């Protein structure tokens, strides 16, 4: 028996808290399949993060990708196989701020890809100590 209905919708916000990200596990398999939409893959690197979301049947012009501080939201309306419309929204909290001017988004074959570079101020920096 599934209990998706009892999940608090605001748990979506818990996807990413700090660097202690769920690596597959319960979020990636069970809950992700039945409850969370769209499904995503997330990568992290020194430059930032890359999100890929499966959203078949969406008109890319009507896809709303929004970044506010550390929060990424993906929402829109899509056509389902049966012709019905389905509104969706999923939000993620990133561990650090994003350079919101340099975000790149691409939609191809029903997959949205968003590249989010780290905000410069949040990049780890090494200070050079000048010796007098």
């Amino acid at each position, binding site marked *: 028996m599934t209990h998706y209905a009892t999940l608090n919708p605001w748990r979506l916000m818990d996807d990413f808290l700090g660097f202690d990200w769920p*690596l597959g596990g319960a979020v990636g398999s069970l809950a992700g399949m039945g409850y969370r939409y769209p499904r995503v*893959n997330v*990568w*992290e690197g020194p430059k930032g993060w890359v999100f890929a979301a499966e959203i078949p049947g969406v008109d890319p012009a009507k896809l709303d990708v929004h970044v506010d501080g550390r929060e990424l939201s993906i929402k829109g309306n899509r056509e389902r196989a049966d012709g019905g419309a389905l509104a969706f929204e999923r939000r993620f909290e990133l561990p650090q701020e994003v350079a919101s001017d340099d975000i790149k988004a691409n939609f191809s*074959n029903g997959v949205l890809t968003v590249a989010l570079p780290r905000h410069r101020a949040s990049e780890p920096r090494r200070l050079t100590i000048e010796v007098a």
Partner: protein
Amino acid sequence: MKTDVVKQEDVQVERRECRDEIMPNTAVRQDKDGFLLVAELPGVDDKSLQVTVEDSVLLIEAANTVAEPEGYTLALREISPVTYKASFELPDRVDAAGVKASLKNGLLRVQLPISEAKKPKRIAIAAE
């Protein structure tokens, strides 16, 4: 004491991409000209998609592409490489030669027209 030497060749395991086979979300609608079958195939391009009709069976086979950006490590995986597979037995009245398919924004649309000969005909009543 005897030591077993295991050569590298002996333990080589064939590396194969392991894809789960799943049935895509699919729905069929009907109108007067025929049927429209729509399947959700995110991540599938037209090169990795095959739609065939053989012996009144419509077969859809596709493989999605999951990007792996270089220089990044995976932090969360909900999308895996999969093979989408679905087959449907077509009713006799479908004109197999007239089947058309198109792929856009991750949705595959297969139009299955009803052959003219099998369409319902209105019989004119001759007034006497």
